[in-house]
């Protein structure tokens, strides 16, 4: 079973990396958003320093949506989803592995590169590290909540827009605690660890509920 899951992970990563895949497209989109916002707000470094963590988190939420609509749709179209449904491996685990592969190509590189983007937003080194930590811990929640929407819309011809409408409200708690943890690290009344641990809990809960709900959606949608 482990071999099957590892093969699935490698396959999804290869698909993302090769032509037509969306690997690292999220990072480019992230860079675009971070570039656009100072144009809209004006290049006031103090303002950017204050709202930088919030900008990075909103960019992370939007970048997660990239490629999410194809998470199960490609497999649905070429028939490999039917093979996954029929295989001995529990569908919940398959969903977790596919979600993990998506996170490795969107959330994880965003978190890794966030200090670089923080530089553009005039962030202090402390703030960069705290935003990086919150993104690292919080983006799995975004991916797995989004995965539910991806599974629900897998059979729809143009599922991308409706996917965003379905999952963005559910991502709000993650956004709230991600930003409040990042802000708490910059000083404030709440210690950093309180919202940070809630954020970690949200990710763990999202992985479990996301796996169960996505698997149920894929079984029902066939």
């Amino acid at each position: 079973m482990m071999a099957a899951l590892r093969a699935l992970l490698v396959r999804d990563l290869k698909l993302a990396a090769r032509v037509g895949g969306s690997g690292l497209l999220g990072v480019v989109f992230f860079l675009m958003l971070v570039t656009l916002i100072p144009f809209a707000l004006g290049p006031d470094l103090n303002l950017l320093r204050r709202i930088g963590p919030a900008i990075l988190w909103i960019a992370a939420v939007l970048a997660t949506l990239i490629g999410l609509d194809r998470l199960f749709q490609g497999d649905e179209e070429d028939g490999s989803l039917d093979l996954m449904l029929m295989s001995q491996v529990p569908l919940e685990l398959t969903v977790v592995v596919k979600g993990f592969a998506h996170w490795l190509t969107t959330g994880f590189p965003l978190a890794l590169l966030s200090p670089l983007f923080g530089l553009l937003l005039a962030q202090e080194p402390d703030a960069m590290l705290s935003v990086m930590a919150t993104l690292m811990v919080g983006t799995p929640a975004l991916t797995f909540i989004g995965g539910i929407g991806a599974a629900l819309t897998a059979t729809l011809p143009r599922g991308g827009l409706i996917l965003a409408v379905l999952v963005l409200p559910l991502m709000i708690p993650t956004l709230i605690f991600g930003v409040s943890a990042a802000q708490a690290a910059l000083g404030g009344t709440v210690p950093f660890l309180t919202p940070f641990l809630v954020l970690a809990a949200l990710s763990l809960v999202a992985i479990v509920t996301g796996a169960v709900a996505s698997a149920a959606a894929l079984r029902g949608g066939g």
Partner: protein
Amino acid sequence: MPTSLLWGLANPTRFMALSARVLPWMAGVSAIVTATGLYLALFSSPTDYQQGETVRIMYIHVPAAWLALALYTIMSASALGTLVWRHPLADVSQKAAAPIGAAFTLLCLVTGSLWGKPMWGTWWVWDARLTSVLVLFLIYLGILALWRAIEEPGQAARAVAILTLVGFVNIPIVKFSVDWWNTLHQPASVIRMDGATIDASMLWPLFMMAIGLTLLALTLHVSGMRSEILARRVRSLTLKAADQSADHRRPLPLGAGSAGAGPA
């Protein structure tokens, strides 16, 4: 036995027959109770010593908020009925409840906003209660969008049921937001462990309005279910007719379309 009653109505034809007889009575009673409640709320109840006449907005706002949560809870119970017990009317109930719940959520947001301007000096604040109700409204809109996006009713029902259950996490957040976060919205004053903290002269009109609007919501819900069942019968008859005109040699099976709940 509530479960046997639920299963007794599982036959759509029986549900249609019973609801056709009950519905006029429900509509009549809800009109009478709501009218009485409105009279009590708008004319015979006292004005508040602090809020003046604007307190009367509360008599719509509070029942609308309760119903926004109650209808989502009905939808979640129906979603369980669809996924776990495969009750044939559960998804019809879920689909009928969604627009009514969305409407009451919007009513709650709008009346709250109208009350907030004179009382708080602002149409909107990003307070925990207001924000969580706005998220509830967005979830309602997402559910309505998903219903419209998937063509096959059975498949749409299962997808929406999953989304409804996932979105249910927001309901306790809305309910307890005023206790967990101490922000602008006042804490609960009617349903409390130590009894209501508002005066009886205002509590009675509020209860009357709550009962009246609940009956109105139930009336709309049942009539929404009836029109959904009829729409599905039309759909399955149309599919049968199209099927038959495509293949003249195959006769229409006896009693086609009487099952009502869409094609099997």
